[in-house]
């Protein structure tokens, strides 16, 4: 039963075993040599985790700016050209970083100014400045937006080391864009290590406080909570309470949710604003880039900076697009891009939600002109008919009851 045991180790003379010995023991006891376990599941309800993952995939999508050349390349031979470009890793610190000092320490920042007239896809950044806030408030079902000035918006998008939430997820990049003297100022705060996160978040809080409202994509569910949680950990008061927040994800999903296979930022910016991005990258892209950088390995942080930079611009033009939804046209009078049937159906729903039945019927009729979504329309029509019938019945009761 027992094999000879001449290899019995004498106990080490003192309590502290050599590091190598401890490591070997830990490896053995923890069975770390075993086949890898299944990947960790995020501690979120499954549906929510899926949605987060989807959004994050989109957020992590190709950071290459859409321009005709890459489009042409994609149509031609180089389907992977974007991915190939991204595969290029750099070493050392990202360039063009300035230190930023505050009461919580130091972090790095990169600031770029884009003239108002800059195009992002088919839209100009300045198109946002003439957005009708009442329109946005109507679409977002959020009356706090009505009286705000679009020029005082702060567009926010963050990069983190994971999606799971919790104190161990680091926020390492915060992209904040605002209009300032004829330009869009894109401020990208960056933590060069976990110890810089408090300073980064302190600067972020300060900038949010100086703004009038926030614009994000899925930020009410993700960015805001990651920031607030980590701010609380570091003893920084979160600046979100009572600050209006337009999360583009929700109104856009209501309008276009059924028109496209997914509700990702990458899809919407392409379909609605003509912003072209190439090959998708895996969702682990942003965490890995920072981990590589911290471990002094070649990294793809530059791609993360560019991607974040593009993301905040997409927030600007998507917001401008959203504000034109009911008009159906751009500022130049061109027909608004995007699935018109779904949009009209969505508007009908919104109107119905506000109990404006006539408006709802009008949008339903408009939607009927577009036959791409018969199922959806059928469903909506049934719903509206039911509501109208119910309303009629209620009115009948009201008018007949006093008589009986």
């Amino acid at each position, binding site marked *: *039963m027992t094999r000879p045991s001449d290899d019995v180790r004498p*106990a080490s003379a003192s309590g502290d075993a050599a590091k190598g010995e401890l490591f070997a023991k830990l*490896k053995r006891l923890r069975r770390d040599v075993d086949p890898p376990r299944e990947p960790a599941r995020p501690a979120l309800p499954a549906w929510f985790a899926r949605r987060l993952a989807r959004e994050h995939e989109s957020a992590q999508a190709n950071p290459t700016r859409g321009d005709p050349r890459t489009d042409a390349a994609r149509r031609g031979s180089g389907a992977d050209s974007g991915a190939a470009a991204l595969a290029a890793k750099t070493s050392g610190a990202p360039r063009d970083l300035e230190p930023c000092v505050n009461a919580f320490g130091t972090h790095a920042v990169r600031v770029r100014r884009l003239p108002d007239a800059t195009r992002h896809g088919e839209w100009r950044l300045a198109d946002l400045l003439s957005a009708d806030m009442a329109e946005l408030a109507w679409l977002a079902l959020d009356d706090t937006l009505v009286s705000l000035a679009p020029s005082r918006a702060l567009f926010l998008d963050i990069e983190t*080391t994971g999606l799971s939430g919790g*104190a*161990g997820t680091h926020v390492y990049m915060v992209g904040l864009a605002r209009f300032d003297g004829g330009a869009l100022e894109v401020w990208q705060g960056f933590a060069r290590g*976990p110890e810089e996160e408090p300073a980064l978040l302190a600067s972020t809080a300060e900038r949010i406080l100086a703004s009038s409202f926030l614009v994000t994509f899925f930020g009410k569910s993700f960015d805001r909570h990651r920031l607030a949680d980590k701010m609380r950990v570091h003893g920084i008061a979160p600046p979100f309470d009572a600050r209006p927040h337009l999360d583009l994800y929700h109104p856009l999903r209501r309008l276009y949710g059924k028109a496209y296979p997914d509700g990702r930022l990458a899809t919407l910016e392409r379909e609605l604003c003509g912003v072209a991005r190439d090959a998708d990258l895996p969702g682990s892209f942003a965490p890995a880039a920072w981990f590589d950088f911290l471990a002094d390995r070649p990294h793809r942080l530059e791609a993360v900076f560019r991607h974040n930079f593009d993301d905040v611009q997409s927030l600007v033009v998507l917001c401008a697009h959203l504000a034109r939804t009911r008009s159906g046209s751009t500022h130049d009078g061109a027909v608004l891009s995007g699935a018109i049937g779904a949009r009209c159906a969505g508007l009908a729903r919104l109107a119905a939600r506000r109990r404006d039945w006539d408006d709802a019927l009008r949008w339903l009729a408009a939607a009927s002109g577009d036959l791409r979504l018969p199922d959806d329309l059928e469903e909506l029509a049934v719903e509206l008919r039911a509501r109208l019938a119910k309303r009629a019945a209620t009115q009948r009761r009201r008018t007949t009851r006093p008589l009986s």
Partner: protein
Amino acid sequence: MRADSDSDAAPRRTPNSVRAAARLSVAELVERLRADPEFGPRCVHWRSVPSRPEQTAPFPACLRPELAELYARRGVTRLWSHQAEAVEHALAGRDVLVTTPTASGKTLCFVLPVLQRLLETDGKARALFLYPTKALSQDQSTNLNGLIGELARDWHSFTYDGDTPPSVRRTLREQGHVVLTNPWMLHAGILPNHAKWAELFRDLETVVIDEVHTLSGVFGSSVANVLRRLQRIAAHYGARPRFLLSSATIADAQNHARSLIGREVEVVQRDGSPSGGRTFAVYNPPMLDAVAGLRANALEEARRLALRIVGPAHQSIFFCNRRTSVEVLTRYLKESAHEMGLERDEIRGYRGGYLPNLRREIESDLRAGKVKVVVTTNALELGIDIGSLDVAVLVGYPGSQASFWQRAGRVGRRARESLVVQVARSDPIDQYLATHPDWLFSAPRERLGLDPNNLVILSEQAKCAAFELPFSTAELEQGPFAGAPHLGGILDYLAEESKLLHRRGERWYWMADAYPAEDVSLAGGGPDNVLILDVDTKKAIGEIDREGSLTTVHEGAIYQVEGETWIVERFDFENRRAYVKQVETDYFTEAEVDTEVRVLRLEREARRLRSGAPAPAALAAPAALAASATAEASRSADVARPSAEADDYSVWSGEVHVTTVATSYKKVRYYTRESVGIEKIHLPAEEIDTQAFVFALSLESAGALGLESGDRGSAWAGVGKLLRHVAPLFLRCQPQDLGLATQVRSPHFSRPAIFLYDRVQGGVGLADVLFESHRELFQAALDVVERCECERGCPGCVGPIAEAGLLGKGTARTILAHLAGGSGASERVVS
């Protein structure tokens, strides 16, 4: 309501004597039972514990008057002495452990200080209550909200568990003055998201942990680390909560609390609550076959006993150790309801796995006296409020003294006469207690195995802690994790090898896209557990730990759950999945296992010399070993290979490497137990490194005891089995928590040796407790063999003849008598 025909029928069905018994008081029942010609003699032990008056004390003077008024409205004008003592300690800011019995008003000991602080701080001070089960926390939440409601303050207590809807979680986090939860939620929900709970942590003044005796083994060792994490997070937000703990009566309570929370506590143990007179009976079922050592089935005996002690005039509770037994006994009793003068509905089963609403209903019907008989598992062992009952029947020893008293504590609270009957099963520990009932009533002797510094548990918990806040090098010296051995090395390992942490200067940061608490189980094993899947329904029907999987879910094994059988079609060892198909079989399977134990390092040693041999110079002797005058002990790091010359026997605790290989399995027919085939098992060996208690007999002594000649090897194995079976007397564990290897000639020691090892990777302290209690262990094992009525070995002692050999029982008795023969003179070798 009873139908007329039934009441007419009942007397005809049942002998009059039984019917009459049903209306008797408990005191009269006891008299009848004693006098019963059949059952009386089988009650091998009787003990009466007289009623005890209450001892009271006034409310502490510093207590806010509105709190005394609050309780006065509930009829409480004075506190019981232990309550007053605990409350005073708590109000003075001390950490307290209350170890009085179930239903001695422990809740008040926690609630009063918490309410007092809420009043004093005008609602600022917060408290966190940890309960071992969900049901308990819900119970308490209702109670607390009732009290707070009467104080007319805008304070709230909430239960936070898996059932808490997401919509109210936020309110709860921000406005919960008292949060009631369980260790799992704290571990995986609250601590990793501490930022969301910042309001709670910032003003966290009190942490209450109920029933801390349940925190032992892997689970307890993990929870001790969760509590380190809790203190760490609280400190981050500037709080240093005080701990208020409660426990059943356990040995060395002070030490247990220290291992658990890392602080010294004030132990309050003098119970001031009143109790009615209690009569205890130990019932040993009749021996059916002395050769086989077979006694009448305990469950069947419990049913027969019920006809004599259950009735409509009082409430009874039956405790079984397994869920299936609960169902079987409930059915038996319902079928006999009329013979006991009861309706079927007055008899209920109650166990984990019942839906919460059903359980609440049964609990309230028990309190209201509507349910007369409840059959349950340990589900009703903890403090769920079901009122006080009159008769308790324990079908089988519950495995620990603490559990025994928790169960017994379910009866006799209202200063009424009550009866507790312990029904013995055939296994060694029950039989030991049938002959040594004093053991139950003496001071608690079993100790809790708890080792927060187990390398595996500590390293897994360090991952979770690092996720919550970066570790600084200063924390190796101070704070809740201070002094945890090898912590710095573990953190480096997690950084350099596992790539989960990133060290920058004096700090280790979590640096991975993962949520570690999800994958770290408090009960151990976790990701290594094997999931058992039904191939037809695609559903999981069970889970088994890594070690157990080799012998229970190998291909061809019959897997049994609650009487239903499945055959294992495929065991995907790599991916930890076993695929099973439901079948009807007339056989079950038993795997044969080869276990190989290799000594890695011996840490503590104690030995006894053969009388007449010169005693070696004493080495540093830990106080725990002082029991035997001739025992030498060392806690030396370099114990050389022991010289056996003058030794009689030696014991060690140390590290071992255990390799287990499942070699083959037998198909055994039900009832007849005939073997209908043997098949090979093809599975890789399972290896663990763990702590073991090792015991070796010198060659001289072995020779003198006749252990060398052939057949006697199986007697040595029988000794090992017995030791393993009686270990739970001194250690809170199940026999299956301990692995056993017996070697007639150990290659390491070159003499007979027995290894009892902790079946948890890395060990959680069981081996050390055994090492320290080994003399008592020998004595208990000897007592079992000596008192066993079988002729030549049975399952109740060294095992049946087929296993222990014809001379097995005699030889085992000789060996144990020699080992347990304690002092000077008897150390002479007897053969």
